[in-house]
């Protein structure tokens, strides 16, 4: 049997950071990833933060990857952070940029496929030198221990079994490793959020103009109020370089209590007039083809139109981007900017004159995806290890989510570094007993991120309350929540922090994360104080079947999910809550069709749930 020092299981940003850190420390490690390519299974909101906490230390992404700021495929540096309360066409906005900037070096919008591929390239280069590396397309099936040596024997669906001294489990929120060894139970619905996201295409310079940002700036918009359809959570819209990430994230227990389709939730957000106006673009509208034409003629027109539209999109996208224009001119096909623009115009004319294509206002969605997010304050593993297996990131249930503070990737990276340091130390001492896990557990317990999962940061709360200080007290009746009282009253605001600490974080969470905070109060704020926004068009939202059809899959004929009880109440709710509509009910029994599954794990509570085998399943383009 082949033997290696360390195996990292899962090639997300946390696992890759662990591999990179181990390599930085001169330790041999291999990383096993189920996707055919690193990044293909990853999805995030996503903003990646670098933090500078006042107390304690965290390891930031730019410390793990020294050329990160110069070379990594970052989207935009978020410089505006705004919370919008919505009620029908009314929106009341609060600037929370100070909260975003709080103890932060930076926060960049990112797309996981591109970013994790970049992380992988850096980590692979370092790991290779030490005889390690990254192995994609392999799904870990089981772990067992050699009783004599205590080493871990790893069995996969694809490779011969092999042996390692320690495992760093970074296999995400639905960690199979955690479940198979019994390190923790599956997360419950109270411990999880379900997030759904769409990528909207929008040319770079249109984004600059619409969001009033320069080319190296970005904006983040959060939404609460009636767009939540009475669920606990909210919506977001982040600017990327030439796309927008638009998503809806809700507590899973809230969705279970009052089921709403994930796509309905995101559609509601997209239809909000403010969001509709943010995402709108000029789009070509295909003409109706005369049914009486011959089959060949119909095909000729259809292909002609499709080809022109594609060319038009490509050139237009480049035309609205400084680097795109440069690329076109460098290619030698165009003399100068005017040449590009006149070509674009002539294609446009050809489209309308030759084929009857018209232009209208709509939006263009390019990818739909969903993921579960572990709510760190409710589900972080108190002891994130089992024997010589260390759990990091989502697998350990770690993330900081407090109101508008949304941090996951940076937490996973910091965890990866802690775990790598602990394993490197164990390698030096050749001690893989429980002391490895205990050392890791202790080091992570002192991480400022863990502290933030345990108690509310009073300075952060103050910034949040300050942002709300302009809300007049008489607008909202006293019956709407303690938080509102804090926000709206100077006296209360003064003692709010003291108050927060007196009642304690555990008691405060239900108040912060209540329907009042996320739904009622914002709705009233919008109604009473909001400005009316009218949308200039109605977005044509693709039905879920089209969204799924647009995704890339490598179908596995073997189902990776088995329904355990086809008539349970929970499974019946999956018919509504599965983001890719894999479940249907026939004659009182719930049945699954696993082919369109996007591996989110929403149904995992009451199913036998595995990640698909190596290279199988969903393959995100953006993530």
């Amino acid at each position: 049997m082949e033997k290696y020092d360390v195996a990292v299981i899962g090639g997300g940003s946390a696992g890759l950071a662990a591999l990179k850190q181990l390599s930085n420390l001169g330790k041999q490690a291999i990383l096993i990833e189920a996707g055919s390519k690193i990044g293909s299974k990853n999805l995030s909101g996503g903003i990646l933060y670098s933090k500078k906490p006042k107390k304690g230390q965290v390891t930031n992404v730019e410390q793990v990857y020294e050329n990160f700021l110069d070379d990594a495929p970052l989207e935009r540096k978020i410089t505006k952070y705004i919370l919008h309360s919505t009620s029908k066409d009314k929106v009341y906005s609060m600037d929370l940029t100070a909260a975003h900037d709080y103890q932060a070096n930076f926060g960049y919008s990112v797309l996981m496929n591109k970013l994790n591929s970049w992380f992988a390239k850096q980590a692979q280069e370092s790991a290779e030198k030490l005889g390690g590396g990254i192995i994609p397309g392999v799904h870990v099936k089981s772990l067992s221990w050699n009783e004599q040596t205590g080493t871990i024997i790893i069995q996969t669906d694809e490779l011969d079994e092999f042996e390692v001294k320690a495992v760093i489990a970074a296999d995400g929120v639905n960690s199979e490793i955690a479940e198979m060894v019994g390190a923790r139970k599956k997360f419950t619905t109270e411990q999880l959020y379900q997030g759904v996201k769409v990528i909207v295409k929008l040319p770079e310079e249109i984004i600059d103009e619409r969001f009033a940002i320069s080319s190296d700036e970005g904006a983040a918009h959060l939404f609460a109020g009636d767009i939540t359809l009475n669920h606990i959570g909210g919506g977001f819209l982040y600017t990327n370089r030439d796309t927008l990430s638009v998503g809806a994230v809700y507590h899973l227990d809230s969705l279970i209590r009052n089921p709403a389709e994930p796509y309905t939730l995101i559609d509601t957000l997209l239809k909000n007039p403010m969001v509709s106006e943010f995402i709108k673009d000029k789009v070509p509208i295909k003409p109706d083809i005369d049914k009486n034409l011959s089959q060949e003629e119909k095909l000729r027109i259809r292909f002609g139109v499709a080809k022109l539209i594609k060319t038009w999109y490509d050139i237009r996208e480049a035309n609205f981007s400084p680097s795109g224009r440069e690329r076109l001119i460098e290619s030698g096909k165009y003399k100068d900017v005017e040449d590009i623009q006149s070509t674009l115009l002539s294609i446009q004319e050809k489209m309308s004159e030759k084929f009857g294509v018209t232009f209208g206002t709509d939006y263009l969605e390019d990818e739909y995806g969903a993921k579960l997010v572990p709510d760190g304050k409710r589900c972080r593993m108190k002891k994130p290890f089992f024997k010589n297996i260390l759990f990091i990131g989502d697998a350990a249930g770690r993330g900081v989510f407090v109101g508008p503070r949304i941090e996951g990737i940076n937490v996973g990276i910091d965890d990866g570094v802690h775990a790598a340091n602990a394993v490197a130390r164990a390698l030096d001492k050749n001690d893989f007993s429980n002391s490895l896990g205990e050392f890791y557990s202790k080091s992570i317990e002192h991480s400022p991120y863990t502290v933030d999962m345990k108690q509310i940061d009073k300075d952060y709360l103050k910034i949040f309350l300050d942002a709300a200080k302009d809300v007049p007290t008489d607008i909202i009746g006293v019956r709407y929540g303690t938080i509102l009282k804090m926000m709206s009253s100077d006296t209360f605001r003064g003692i709010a922090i003291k108050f927060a600490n007196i009642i304690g974080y555990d008691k405060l969470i239900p108040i912060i994360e209540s329907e009042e905070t996320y739904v009622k109060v914002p709705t009233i704020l919008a109604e009473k104080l909001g400005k009316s926004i009218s949308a200039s068009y109605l977005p044509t939202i693709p039905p879920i079947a089209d969204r799924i059809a647009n995704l890339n899959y490598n179908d596995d004929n073997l189902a990776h999910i088995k329904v355990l009880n086809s008539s349970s109440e929970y499974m019946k709710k999956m018919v509504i809550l599965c983001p890719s509509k894999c479940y249907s009910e026939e004659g009182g029994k719930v049945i699954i069709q696993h082919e369109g599954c996007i591996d989110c794990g929403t149904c995992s509570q009451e199913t036998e749930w595995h990640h698909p085998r190596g290279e199988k399943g969903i393959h995100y383009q953006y993530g």
Partner: protein
Amino acid sequence: MGTLNITVIIKLEPDFSEGNVSYNPDGTLNRAETKNTLGPHSGIAAHAAFFGRVMYDAKVFIVTMGPPIADLALQQAQQISDAEELHLYSDRLFAGADTLGTAEVLRVGIEKMPHKMDIVFSGHRASDGETGQTGPQTAWKLGFTFLGNVISYSVDLETRTIRAKRLISLQGSPNVVEEVEAPLPVFISIDPTYKSNYDAVSQRLAFEKYQKEAIQRAQNFKDYLKVFNAKELGVDETLVGLPGSPTIVYKVERVPKSTATRRAEVIDGTDPEQIRKVVTKMKEALSAMVIK
């Protein structure tokens, strides 16, 4: 343990994938307008060579006879196989060659290589010629043991032998997999169903490493490319090109377009009467399908 030297003979072929093919009005291929690419079977042979690279740290060489633009196929094959040398045999004298005339050029080229070859791979056939003869004829000229339809192989570097599985399909009987052992050197024609299996972690690590190297090499493929004309190769001019090709194309016929046997009828889904008709037809079709 000795080293392993592998050559792959490949071919630049018309790209028959959608949108890349162009035909003349008489139905023959318009070669000037059609894009070219590495032949799909050549690609599989290059994958088989890469298996040798990963498993046995083999040195891989890619050779082809063709026009100067065939360097495109060499580049594509290098990206698959991580080859360290690319040889292009290109001369007007080679034009008009049939499989025998081609095999002669390849034989001379392979024998002239800086190393003695242990395995020479060819694809199963070309997508434009479809005769599948160049490989076997080259093997015969080289005097190598010929193994056809190989679906997997392993090499024992100590004993200098190869074990190969061959897929034997005979019409009317089930397929048979035959396992043969042969001393090196051998000539292998790769079966279209060939697949490389990398089952150990170390093999997968080597795979990733060499794949990365292959991509880098292919980006600068000109650094690895050597072009030889007839004189540089030292071929016997009577055995190559048209003079060396005994094949006579007697007649070319167009394959008649098959007439459609199915007819489509458009049904208005809102009309219950029409739907009833569909159901009746489906019932008829189903009852016809019952095996009696």
